[in-house]
């Protein structure tokens, strides 16, 4: 998952980005002011925007309004140091999904960020299920048919992204955009290698089992459909 962090306080942004990368393993892009944040957000590759309210050049509320004005439905978590109920009501009415008053608890911020991303993908529960795969987003663990599958962080994130988008063809480019921030080199063959490893690990103990990830040649990957599997085998 890729998160856009718009925060003008450098040290706070450093800590938040580190926590988001270390904890849930999100890719994080950082913008130091409102206009830069708006430019980043226009790429449309983010699964969550963490937005400070008091920003230079363009304040958080205006940025939020711009975002919603162009029908961008990315979940937005607001960080605010303002007092009073009115600003909060105003924020939620302007399209914010959640807010945290400063100084916040880092653990709470991570939990809310994960919940917002989950909700944004249409999943209410932290346990995601597809086929016979169980993906625990809290522990970042994956079980297939009850057996724990040991995945690398990137492999886990690819699987999580595919499960969040069932039956949708996900291009290598999309995976790149959502799993890596701008600090990484973009190479689609990196994705190919990770997907290949992921397939091997998922199918290692179950050689007869149907494939979990389908390759749509030239278009990308897709999570296999549950009902179609038995038909294809027979």
């Amino acid at each position: 998952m890729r998160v856009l962090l718009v925060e003008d306080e450098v040290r706070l942004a450093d800590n938040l980005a580190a926590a988001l990368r270390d904890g849930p393993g999100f890719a994080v892009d950082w913008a130091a002011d409102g206009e830069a944040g708006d430019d980043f957000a226009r790429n449309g590759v983010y699964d969550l925007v963490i937005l400070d309210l008091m920003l230079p050049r363009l304040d958080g509320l205006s940025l939020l309004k711009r975002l919603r004005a162009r029908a961008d439905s990315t979940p937005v978590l607001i960080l605010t140091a303002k007092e009073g109920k009115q600003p909060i009501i105003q924020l939620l009415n302007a399209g914010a999904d959640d807010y945290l008053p400063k100084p916040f608890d880092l653990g709470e911020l991570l939990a809310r960020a994960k919940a917002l991303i989950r909700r944004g993908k249409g999943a209410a529960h932290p346990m995601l299920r597809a086929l016979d795969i169980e993906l625990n987003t809290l522990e970042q663990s994956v079980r297939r048919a009850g057996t724990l599958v040991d995945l690398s962080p990137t492999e886990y994130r690819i699987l999580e992204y595919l499960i969040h988008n069932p039956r949708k063809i996900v291009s290598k480019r999309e995976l790149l955009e959502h799993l890596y921030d701008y600090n990484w080199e973009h190479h689609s063959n990196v994705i190919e290698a990770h997907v290949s490893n992921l397939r091997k690990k998922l199918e290692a103990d179950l050689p007869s089992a149907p494939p979990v990830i389908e390759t749509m040649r030239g278009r990308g990957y897709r999570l296999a459909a549950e009902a179609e599997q038995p038909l294809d085998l027979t």
Partner: protein
Amino acid sequence: MTSPDLTSHQHTSPNLPRSSPAPQDASRSRWSTHSIAFRLIAVVLAVELVSSVLVILLSLGYERHTHFHAFDVMLHGRADSVLGAVQDAEDAADNVMLDEADLHLPADDLWEVWDERGHLLGRSPNWQGSGQGYTPEASDGFSKLTLGGHDFRLLREHGSRIVDPGEPGGGTLRHVTVLYGAPTSHVRRAIRRAVEFYAAGSLILLLVTGPLIAWLLHRGLLPLRQLAALASRVSVDSWQFDPPASARTTRELAPLTHAMESVLAGLEKAFVQQRTFVSDAAHELKTAVAVVKSSLQLVALKPRSPAEYEAGLDRALADTARLEDLVAKMLTLARVEGGIATASAATTPAACDLAASLRQTVSDLATVAELRRVRVNLHAPQAPCLVPLPAEDALLLASNLLLNALQHSPADASVLLRLSVESGSALLTVEDHGEGISPDVLPHVFDRFYRGDPSRTRSTGGAGLGLAICRAIVEKASGTVAIASQPGVGTTVTVRLPLAAPPADSPPPSA
């Protein structure tokens, strides 16, 4: 009007200037003795009452005079007609007699006629007589008599008649005394009726004008009440004070209205500034605390190596130092700004040598300048340049300005500090050759917590308070501070401070 409220209310203490009178109090105090309307009505009615009494007394005197004058004229006339009835008796002794046949007098009247020999010539049938007889020694005049429960006014008149005027020697002169009285009851009744008319008129006038005056006063005091109602609506949360046009145009209320408007505007401005400062300060403090907290929580997020822990603790410590610096600067600003009110009062501010403060600052910050590889040039007179600032504030001013210049100077650049005395004031300029400040940012650099370009000031770790502190110090000493900048060329801060009187002189002039 004299309701029982009035007497009971007088016992309450006269604590009129209450900030917010309770609604039920408002109606009561309307008739209390502290009400302007009540007092005016009372005064007007009292004046009316006194005038009425005076009118009644004057009319009483006038009516008495005119009625009794007419009465006296009538008495004279009637006495004369009695005198006219005295005729020659046609006897040898040349006596006179009274011919009553020609007398037509009111039956109530009393009269009697005596001749000089003491003979009673005639008397009204309803009278026993005065018993005085002929009294030539008594002068003509009026007297009072009460007869049968009635008051009479009695006129004594002396007359004479010549008997046989045709005879040689001019005839015989005979003297008579006429006493004539008439009852005064109907005169008194007439006077009473006239006075009663005046009294009734006054009373009716009083009854009509009383409520009329009350109503007119109520109407006349409407602008005052409107003003009071609007003023009572002003509160800490709502500064809206829009005085009615009537209050503005009324000569008596205009000064009060203007005073209230200006005071409220000033208070609101100060209040909004204070609120903005508190809100900004809260934001800065919370953010600084959030940084410290997140730094520590980041370290605790997962098990780490000792080196990672060490680095994390170092970062948290640096963040804490920044928080500490922020708090210290905010307290400094609060101290400097808070001192404005007392400094402008009678206390004479301390004076210090700004040139010495600059020299000390330059030496204090020499290591910082060296680290940033910036040259600092100071041009200051050797002679003391006394400014009305405490030494502590002068140092703070100098170091804040120099630090600001150093932070915005690239390596190998120079900063120029120049102090001079010009037309009775000290002129300090701090010139750097940094990247300059864009024109849209320039007007805000003295605002509290204002940070220009974040990418620039963040790296220097400024809290956005340094220049605000400078401005507060300078303005406290009745000086001015200005900033001019040319992007890409550099920035110059100009401070102008009044000169303080040398302490060796006669007692310092009170500010």
